[in-house]
């Protein structure tokens, strides 16, 4: 595992997300209103909806397919639903965003 640069904070709109393609599937990288960065698998535990396409509110995202609300901090479904999605460690170095992956970055946009 090592820290891999996946982009900069300005690549992601506030209350929005971008995707990172990996051989193990897509990762969704989120930026909250307060500029916190989170990364989780882009795959809702309910029916596999692309979480990166959901509405971001607080430190949570609502899945665009069936409105499950997923915590960005824990990856767990909030409210009455049960399920969870893998979280990926991220950190910031200035504007750069790094993710803890077993991979190497090939190309940023």
């Amino acid at each position, binding site marked *: 595992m090592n820290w891999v640069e996946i982009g900069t904070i300005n*690549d992601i709109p506030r209350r929005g997300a971008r995707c990172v*393609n990996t051989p193990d599937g897509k990762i969704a990288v989120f930026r909250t209103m307060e500029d916190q960065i989170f990364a989780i698998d882009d795959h809702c535990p*309910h029916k596999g909806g692309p979480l990166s*396409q959901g*509405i971001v509110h607080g430190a949570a995202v609502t899945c665009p397919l069936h409105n499950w609300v997923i915590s960005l901090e824990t990856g767990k479904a909030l409210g009455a*639903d049960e399920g969870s999605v893998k979280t990926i460690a991220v950190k910031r170095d200035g504007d750069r965003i790094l993710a803890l992956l077993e991979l190497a970055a*090939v190309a940023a946009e």
Partner: protein
Amino acid sequence: MEAATKKQKLVVIGNGMAPGRALEHLFEMAPDAYDVTIFNAEPRVNYDRIMLSPVLSGEKAFEEIIIHGDGWYIKHGITLYKGHKIVGIDLTAKTVTSDAGTTETYDKLLIATGSVPFVLPVPGNNLPGVLTYRDLDDVNAMLLAAQSRARAVVIGGGLLGLEAAAGLKSRGMDVTVLHIMPTLMERQLDPAAGYLLEQAVEQRGIRVMTKASTKEIIGQTKVEGVLLADGTILSADLVVMAAGIRPNAMLAKEVGLETNRGIVVDGGMRTSDSDVFSIGECAEVGGQCYGLVAPLYEMARVVSAQLAGDADAKFVHSETPTKLKVTGINLFSVGDLGEGDDRQEIVLRDAAAGVYKRLVLKDDRIIGTVLYGETSDGAWFHDLTKKRTDISEMRDTLIFGQSYQGGSPLDPMAAVAALPDDAEICGCNGICKGKITGAISGKGLTSLDDVRAHTKASASCGSCTGLVEQLLSITLGDSYNPSAVTPMCGCTDLGHDDVRRLIKAKKLKSIPAVMQELEWKTSCGCAKCRPALNYYLIADWPDEYADDYQSRFINERVHANIQKDGTYSVVPRMWGGVTNSRELRAIADVVDKFEIPAVKVTGGQRIDMLGIKKEDLPAVWADLGKAGFISGQAYAKGLRTVKTCVGTDWCRFGTQDSTGLGIRIEKFMWGSWTPAKVKMAVSGCPRNCAEATCKDVGIICVDSGYEIHFAGAAGLDIKGTEVLGMVRTEDEALEHVVALTQMYREQGRYLERIYKWAKRVGLDEIRRQIMQDDAKRRGYFERFVFSQKFAQVDPWSERVSGVDKHEFQPMASVSYQQAAE
């Protein structure tokens, strides 16, 4: 590999409320004991059959009565065969086989085939137009028949028949109820209450004929009427048989299980084959079959305990109160109402108030209760019966109810507060008071929905909702306010209308300003309130507010429709449904170039391309744009299509240029956002080939001008339009339609379709403002035109030129680590 015990296979035949409840219990008690397979003859998930009457009357939508959505089956790993009817069971080989040829083996089998409606054995009972009242298909068939607003005859004056009659009446049909006995609901009510009920039903404009024996259903190719034994002929276009149900024990009987009226089971719900269980309306336990939900849920509890290994679980018979779910008629009945020398009764009548109460006593104990008109003491009387309380001390005041006992105050709340903790509140689910108050304080519940989610109290037939709300008030004190408006979402206590009003009054022009000034409880809102606020702001301040794309659902953010696999579909505008060879060729080229897997003609007269990868969207739009296409906004809360017929251009019946008017409306009105989607149509003559009378807004052309319709629906709800009014010229037609849409834009709640908005504000008020008040209409029209200055921009060409580029590209791609590194 999983070690130790192998899971057993449980196969369930039937997917109604009883097996649904049984599985809920089973997954709680023994989550890993069984692999479950369900065969459902109905092509859908488990829903609350008791609530079909509110669906028929239009008070609820089908979605609101679903108990287990598809997600529940997936979550529990259940294989659900929808629309598979089991036609064979092999008890020796332990297999079941469906009509589609699917065979499954089982270790344990649960038969829950329910009941079948009793169809009178009279000539003509199989004519088209003769329906039963049992499942959603029956309700849909009735709704379809009700659209013609013709005459219906309901055979059967029991619970189901009266609910069906009330539902059909509220859908605009002329309804007659035939009942063979002298008074309605004679099994649950005494004649006096039956008479009051008959009067109340007739006051709703439903004709009631008692002692009416059906001899024949008459008609040539479809129902035309009903012939009674006394020679009376009633004409009818729809006949609903609601004369009772019979346990559906056919299959069990065929395969050799012991059956009587129903499938015979012991107290543990086990049939004559020790690996086969049966519950629900098809099961006969202790010589009795059951039709009300409470004992069926009791069966569910017992069978789940048995399946989980508790051999001691036994079914216990209990009396269940009857309640009629017809809005405005309050009726409660339970126990033994017969007369006899060893019995006494206490009766209270108040004709002016329409109240009738009767208690049947034996040995100083209540054995039967009928309440009509005022039923709030039902739970208390029922409780006294169940506990066999000696009532001799309070006999003089007993009939006045609990609040008159022991000098306690007349506050109805006090009566509920005084109920013991084990008093039953929700009869359907067998939930007592202590369990509800315990959940409210123990789990911090604050709303009716919370209580329903956690305890199921009032979640089935809903008739105990008032009691549950009173318990909420008692437990929570002043912090519970049931009469308050429903808040927009958990982020605020304000309702949609208050928020809209305050946005205007306080001149709030951004989402953060709204959240600050209106004291939002969350910092950033949620996926419910943010899209709503974004719409309200853009509708109220079209020139000043900057659309917040992060507060839009993905479809509106990327201007395409997300599909279940995360790909998108794209629908270009095809004005009025008219196209040509050049446009079709351009679409064909795009489909080939981007290898688009599916192309479909939509219901709105245009073409849908499905399965496009998100990254390809801008390039697809670029090619479509070169051919002159713009976004069809098939994803938007805004104008979707304007369907047309060919009108005077081609049709020998056409009275006006309906195609031209449709195109003109679409070109004038596309762009501005609306509270929910808006679909329109223009038909060139009253034959109505463009189906304008089920649209949000429709126009029917006639020789003398244009008849404007609105508030139709043909989705979850089916509803014909209302007539707004008649205008003479095309220009007037356009102005009126635009003004109507703007009025809706200014008043509608987010996601509220036109027909719901119209119902809320009143058809007459809308007609007055649009048809009669010229100044108002001009004002609406001009405000719409102003909004269009900012909204009528093709979102596809914007994105082709680079807007929101980040939406369509991944931020990075990473691969496995290179060896060299």
